[in-house]
């Protein structure tokens, strides 16, 4: 089955300058995580989003579009990124999501109904 892991961050993560030890450690953990997803044949895709204040939302109601400067839901948690993975079942998907090297976050794991490329 295919699952989307939506990463909602409760606090903005630290920004480390490239070249510093902290940056290396931070990036190293994510690279290792990505690699483990690939090695296990679980990785389909993933990405990190720019912060929520760069978002533009088109709200369509009754055929009329309104542009909103910001994400579609204002909350303390911000959608920060996603992974698209394949897993045997929810238990495996949850295990993979839980292995993510992230401190404070809500990770929503949701099955895909279908994906256009795989039809």
């Amino acid at each position, binding site marked *: *089955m295919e*699952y989307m892991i939506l990463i909602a961050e409760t606090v903005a993560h630290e920004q480390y300058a490239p070249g510093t030890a902290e940056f290396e450690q931070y990036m190293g953990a994510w690279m290792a995580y990505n690699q483990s997803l690939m090695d296990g044949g679980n990785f389909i895709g993933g990405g990190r989003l720019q912060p929520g204040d760069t978002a533009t939302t088109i709200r369509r109601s009754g055929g009329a579009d309104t542009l909103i400067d910001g994400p579609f839901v204002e909350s303390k948690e911000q959608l920060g990124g996603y992974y698209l993975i394949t*897993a*045997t*079942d*929810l*238990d495996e*998907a*949850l295990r993979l999501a839980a292995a993510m090297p992230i401190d404070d976050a809500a990770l929503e794991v*949701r*099955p895909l*109904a279908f994906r256009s490329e795989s*039809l």
Partner: protein
Amino acid sequence: MADVREAVTRLAREQSGRVLALLAARFGDLDLADEAVQDALLAASQWKHVPDNPPAWLYTVARNNAIDRLRRAAVERRRLLAAAPDLTARKPFGDPEHDATEEEPMVVEHSEVGDEQLRLMLLCCHPALDRDTQVALTLRLVGGLSTPEIAAAFLLPEATLAQRIVRAKRKIRDAGIPLSIPQRLDDRVQALLTVLYLVFNEGYLARGGAPGIRIDLVDEAIRLTRQAAELLPDSAEVEGLLALELFTHARSEARFAAGELVLLDAQDRSRWDARLIASGDAVLARALRRMTPGPFQLQAIIAAYHAKARTSAETDWHAIVRTYDQLVVMMPSPVVELNRAVAVSMVEGPEAGLRLLDTISGLDEYYLYWAVRGELLSRADRPEGALLAMERALTQATNPAELQHLRGRLAAFGERVKP
């Protein structure tokens, strides 16, 4: 007719979970298995007489129902395929054509059945389902209770409960919650035990409310816990829970007199069920021999000390306090600390208990905290404080029998305050 009805009820309670577990594992489809079993039970309700071997009958009829459903679905798919080959070109999941129709020997190895049943129990208590859903699903699928029966037992509208179960089954299917023995079995068993204990408590506290109307959740919980103990033969905590339930249930009859709640120390101990206590003793002894202590075993030990005391005055409160000391370490919670404070007050006096109560936080909204405080203040000869505490307890309690008891205590305290 009454015989048939009783036999069908027993079949549903005792066998439908097992048959459902087998079919769900065999066809890899919980929903299909559930519908097949429900159809079979419906057919059983039309029996003119009870067949020789009802469990075998249920298995065969339910299995045939499942195969019929799969055949019909396959025919429908072929029809669609012929009409629009492009749309249905992909092979659907769980193609039933291969294995569903072949005959399978009726006799199933017992160990195998146990494994399927355990999977079903653990599935119903999967952490991806919320607690209320776990409870409803366990009673419905493992316990073989009908949706109206569960709704009535929890005093919920039938539609709410039906919706809860439909949603749960959909989530199990669509989110891919597996019917498998998990890697981290201990955590999952813990969730199962929590659910069973919740069912037990719901049944126990409701007793005396409306006798005879609601399904007896106490019996169901004990039955399911016994089943879980058979399926998890190495788990001391399952036996601990079973023993705790048996000891507690043994006191059921004495808990009410003339429709009123009677607390432990005032209960007529001759009305305690000696058979249940003996059976609790045996189960607890078996658990303790495994040398893997746990919170349910400790609570069962405490219940056993109470069961052993022939009169309230004979209670070994020192031993009970020692057990609570361990329980507080193993399962730190303000409710456990509250119970420990009561035990300490029985050894060292009410003031000692009150001092402990002052150190407990997080129970401001819990009626038993205030009821205990009221009783301890009363014993410490401080009736004004007792009255205030009991008034506060009354605003927080919800169970009718407990409310009535608290009102009685409040009146008694009021008498003492009068000049």
